[in-house]
């Protein structure tokens, strides 16, 4: 654990709470396993001593800003997480002056589950280009980290080249396993609708059955509603209790969005997500 980094976070958090600048600080604390991290809400200056930061801090805490949109909060974010703040700003879900962003320079995080952490960095960290968050008010500067720069879409490309029947079979098998717990949605900073289409009764888009057809509709539409909006934190995949490879789905759309519209979500709060805008002159492969 980088104790210098933690001291910076705690110092800043204490200052914000003592001065009354924010009502609370959303950060990480040690989980009940004594090994990994969990989200923590500090409301008292004394509570900042519980704040930590290390390679097990996978959670994207920007997700909580929508719950707390009426109170000024500080939030600890890695570079990837901070893209969600830009997304939420762009979509007017939060106000910039209601958030104090404590950015951290990220050493990358590892795959964790309760009482377990991997040695290796998460796949997304191995291809991550961001060292500093694109948005922050205070930057906690950790040790400089050299990170392997990999090709981010290798697995997507492999999937693309499989025969169509194999792709169909692969995804059917994955979606069949879904138990519709909606953890992927609940953890997602981009999924903030007060009423999700999947739960709407009128029109009844999907229905309650936990069964292959309904699961497929849910999973495909969840991914599509995040097309050009997914910031790639892969939290949905981390929390999935039945290990559906959601990132492999999300990053297909991310890749296409990049190729078609030269856009990456959450890098700039001013830029509109591609499905919220258009260019008159583009053809996108459709004959006129």
């Amino acid at each position, binding site marked *: 654990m980088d104790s210098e980094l933690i001291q910076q976070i705690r110092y800043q958090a204490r200052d914000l709470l003592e001065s009354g600048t924010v009502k609370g600080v959303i950060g990480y604390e040690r989980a*009940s396993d004594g090994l990994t991290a969990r989200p923590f809400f500090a409301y008292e200056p004394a509570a900042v001593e519980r704040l930590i930061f290390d390679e097990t801090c996978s959670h994207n805490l920007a997700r909580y800003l929508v719950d707390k949109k009426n109170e000024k909060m500080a939030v600890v974010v890695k570079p990837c997480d901070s893209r969600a703040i830009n997304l939420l700003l762009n979509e007017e879900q939060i106000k910039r002056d209601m958030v104090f962003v404590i950015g951290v320079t990220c050493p990358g995080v590892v795959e964790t589950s*309760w009482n377990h952490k991997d040695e290796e960095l998460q796949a997304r960290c191995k291809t991550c280009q961001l060292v500093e968050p694109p948005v922050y008010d205070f930057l906690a500067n950790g040790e400089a980290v050299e990170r392997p720069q990999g090709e981010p879409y290798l697995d997507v490309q492999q999937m693309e080249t499989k025969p169509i029947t194999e792709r169909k079979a692969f995804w059917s098998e994955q979606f069949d396993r879904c138990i519709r*717990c909606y*953890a992927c949605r*609940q953890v997602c900073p981009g999924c903030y609708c007060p009423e999700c289409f999947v739960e709407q009764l009128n029109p009844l888009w999907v*229905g309650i059955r*936990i069964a292959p057809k309904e699961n497929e509709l849910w999973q495909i539409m969840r991914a599509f509603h995040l097309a050009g909006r997914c910031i790639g934190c892969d939290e949905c995949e981390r929390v999935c*209790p039945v*290990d559906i490879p959601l990132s492999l789905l999300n990053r297909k759309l991310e890749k296409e969005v990049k190729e078609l519209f030269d856009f990456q979500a959450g890098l700039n709060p001013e830029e509109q997500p591609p499905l919220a805008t258009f260019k008159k002159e583009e053809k996108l492969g459709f004959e006129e």
Partner: protein
Amino acid sequence: MNLFISRDELIRWLDQLLRERILAAPVQVQGLTLFQPISKVEEVTLDFGNTTLSPKEWFLPPTETLFSMQGNDGHPQLVPSTIEKDAVIFGLRPCDAKGIALMDGPFLREPGDALYQERRARTSLIGLSCRQVQPECFCTSVGSAPNDSSHVDILLTEIENGYIVQVITEKGKALLPEGLTESKEELPAPPELQAVPTKEVTQAVREFFDNPYWEQLADRCLHCNICAYVCPTCYCFDVRDYPNKGNPERVRSWDSCQSTGFTRIAGGYDPRAAKGARLRQRFSHKLLYFPEEFQDIACVGCGRCVKSCPVNIDIREVMSDLQQLEAKSGS
């Protein structure tokens, strides 16, 4: 008298069982261990701490049709669903067996839930006692044990060259293969588990119903349904109609008290709209309401929720916190 079954005999026995009925057993699927109906004994895995999902789905499936409406040409008829076949669940842990016994409370009391009741009557449980425990396990703190035989028909305990077979019920006796001999070995002592205090917890939930603790705990809760869906004792369900092209079906599916709209009535009013109220409902039901109705905490200590919660809401910690909260009068 305990019997003994060798590994080879076990395989032959399972093979015989799956010919006669549905045999559900732990199977490795994409890195998960799930109870699935098997067609070959080789599919079964016995190398697991506990399964990813509990075996409750064999009695309360994620989705089932309650009845369908037929005969739209003449007068409509409501045709209730029925259960076709006898089943055996092999390899469930004692904690999960207790989970099923707890679900019996709401589902078997009058009027009995027909589908559950029928499945329960036609399913036999062959348990597998735990020779090792996981860090998330705490069954002994909530009235079960790694070698608890009270809720299965047969309990197997692995020893060096096979399994000791305890036949618990007549239903279990009827399943046994012929020719098993008496076990020469004694049952091994069960593994030890760390104790979680639960003595005052029911009282504490009642006393601290209005405590800000719930709202604070709910801060980090995502209100996903994982805890409820992996839990062997959570049994909430939703019921909806499917028009189904003129032959409507009434379907029930798992639901969770954490989901938005769980208690929202037509017109929009929701008595448990607040995050804290929803999270409190989960623990109040397990630790206060259920014990008041059925004399037992609705938790078997399997630790699945501990392991699966994306934000580490740990029921052991919650129970311990509640018992340590100071009474309002004292603070």
